[in-house]
């Protein structure tokens, strides 16, 4: 009996579900080449290269040809600014949360200390509660804090404390730390204590042991945690939504704003570019991982 043969019912459902998963994405990418500017019908790909010409809301000619909407996108300063913000937040928050999270993982895995249970519980909370709640509570705190400080310190105009990129970064760090800690802890759990004992037995003190033995061995876990954090940050909507201010919009926020206003194939182009970047990044990571093995 071939253990890999499945019943037709299962195979059919699998194909259906895969179709379900990918159809929207395919539609998205397809329509980024749509000639029509507004119509949801696919009126064809922009064939001709040449100066921009619009006929009946159909772009029949464009300097970029079929990639018209992508060119349009590259001229969109709002998108570029949002993209830049997204990256700034992601990189900063990832670095900080990875360092702090790794320290926390070490602390929880190796030591017994007074606030241990409290720390463990508080690290689980962001994972268990809905993001809305976390976003709201942080917003409440910041808004109350700001109005109090602005009033009591008599700050006006530009000097006033308000929501901005820095509040987003702080919020991101806070919800990323538990995830990093979880991942690194899992890695630490599998790490045999005897490596570190061997290092100390051979003459290395605590710091040297960590530097030469422990850290290289948990590095894959730390990297995985950092990657997870980075992904969470780039994709985050809800928490960013409640903690950002004017001028500090990230890409997801920008897209959401657009969706409520005007929809053009430019959005599809943005989506396609995003998907491609993500795919490329994942491909890179897989390559790196397999190389390390």
């Amino acid at each position, binding site marked *: 009996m071939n253990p890999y043969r*499945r019943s037709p019912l*299962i195979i059919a459902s699998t194909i259906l579900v895969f179709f379900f998963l990918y159809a929207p994405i395919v539609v998205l990418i397809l329509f980024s080449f749509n000639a029509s500017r507004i119509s949801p019908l696919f009126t064809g790909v922009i064939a001709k290269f040449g100066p921009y010409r619009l006929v009946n809301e159909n772009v029949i000619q464009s300097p970029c040809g079929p990639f018209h909407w992508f060119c349009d996108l590259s001229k969109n300063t709002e998108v570029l600014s949002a993209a830049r913000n997204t990256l700034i937040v992601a990189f900063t928050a990832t670095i900080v949360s990875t360092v702090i999270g790794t320290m926390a993982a070490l602390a929880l895995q190796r030591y*017994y200390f007074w606030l241990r249970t409290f720390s463990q519980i508080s690290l689980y909370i962001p994972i*268990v509660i*809905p993001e*809305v709640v976390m976003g709201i509570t942080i917003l409440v*705190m910041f808004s109350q804090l700001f109005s109090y400080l602005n009033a009591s310190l008599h700050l006006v105009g530009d000097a006033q404390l308000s929501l901005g990129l820095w509040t987003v970064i702080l919020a991101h760090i806070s919800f990323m730390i538990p995830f990093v800690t979880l991942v690194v802890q899992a890695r630490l759990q599998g790490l045999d204590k005897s490596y570190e004992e061997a290092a100390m037995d051979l003459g290395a003190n605590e710091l040297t042991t960590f530097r030469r033995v422990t850290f290289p061995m948990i590095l894959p876990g730390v990297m995985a945690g950092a990657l997870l954090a980075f992904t969470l940050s780039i994709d985050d909507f809800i928490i960013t939504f409640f903690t950002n201010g004017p001028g500090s919009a990230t890409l997801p926020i920008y897209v959401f704003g657009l969706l409520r206003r005007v929809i053009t194939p430019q959005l599809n182009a943005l989506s396609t570019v995003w998907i491609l970047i993500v795919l490329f990044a994942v491909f890179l990571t897989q390559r790196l991982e397999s190389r390390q093995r």
Partner: protein
Amino acid sequence: MLKRLRENKSAQGTLLIVPTLIFMIGMLIIPLLLTLVVSFGQRGADGGVIYTFSLNNYIRLVGFTTDCPPGVKTCFTSLYMEILWRSLVLGFNTTVLDILLAFPLAYFIARAHPRWRNTLMFLVLVPMWTNFVIRVYAWMMILREQGVINSLLGWFAGLVHVPFKPLGMIYTPGAVLVGMIYEFLPFMILPIYTSLEKIDNSLYEAAADLGASPFRTFLRVTLPLSMPGVVAGTILVFVPVMGTFIVSDLLGGSQVILIGNLIENQFLSARDPAFGSAVSLVLMALTIIVTYFYTRKFGFGEEIVA
């Protein structure tokens, strides 16, 4: 002094955890406590908060309000309870349907040839790595009155000369359900797959050897062993569904209001942070209670870490 530190293991641990504690206390505990305080307050001028101690907001949630037709002092409106109920039902439906969709897929991949498993799993995860908002937009494109489905149906109807009226799919509870199912499906597939993958092939062979039909094998062997994954997946789906407002906003319009929408509304449009805080805390309490009893009954799925 270093020597003292070396001896005191507890102090070392404390030192390492301090930055984490600063963030957890400052950005989690304090905000939660502050929100709690605010929830007992009242709506102030200009969207601010008047700090008092009043249970008004909570009472309002349950349905008793002073905002009544003239002549009546307090009346009952089930508005908020309806929202709560609607959100719970949506959460439940999404979870169940996601399980039904995820299971066959996860099963197929888990029992596929090892060489293909990683590739297949990778294919499952690609949509998940795509941004959340973008995926909702995709469904907007598909379900709109002039969206893909309607256009295709219209074009087809034109071919066979049948009169066609576009289906009103978007801005309905159905659309929101579809959107939710789609968004969170990968989060259900992953844990279930992890559980199923752990089942050694020899268990299926043993069951067959002992006379179990494929169906009974599924019931008595596969299903119980997949439970940790199902539990983990349920938590990963149910909690966010209760809290998301994007899907209901974009696919449901003003027709479908969930708790998430209510909260967003209070803070942005209605400018009543006190009430919004109360609703948020109720939501949090609800999710914690459901999660607690659920994991109590079914065990905590370690597959969440995957």
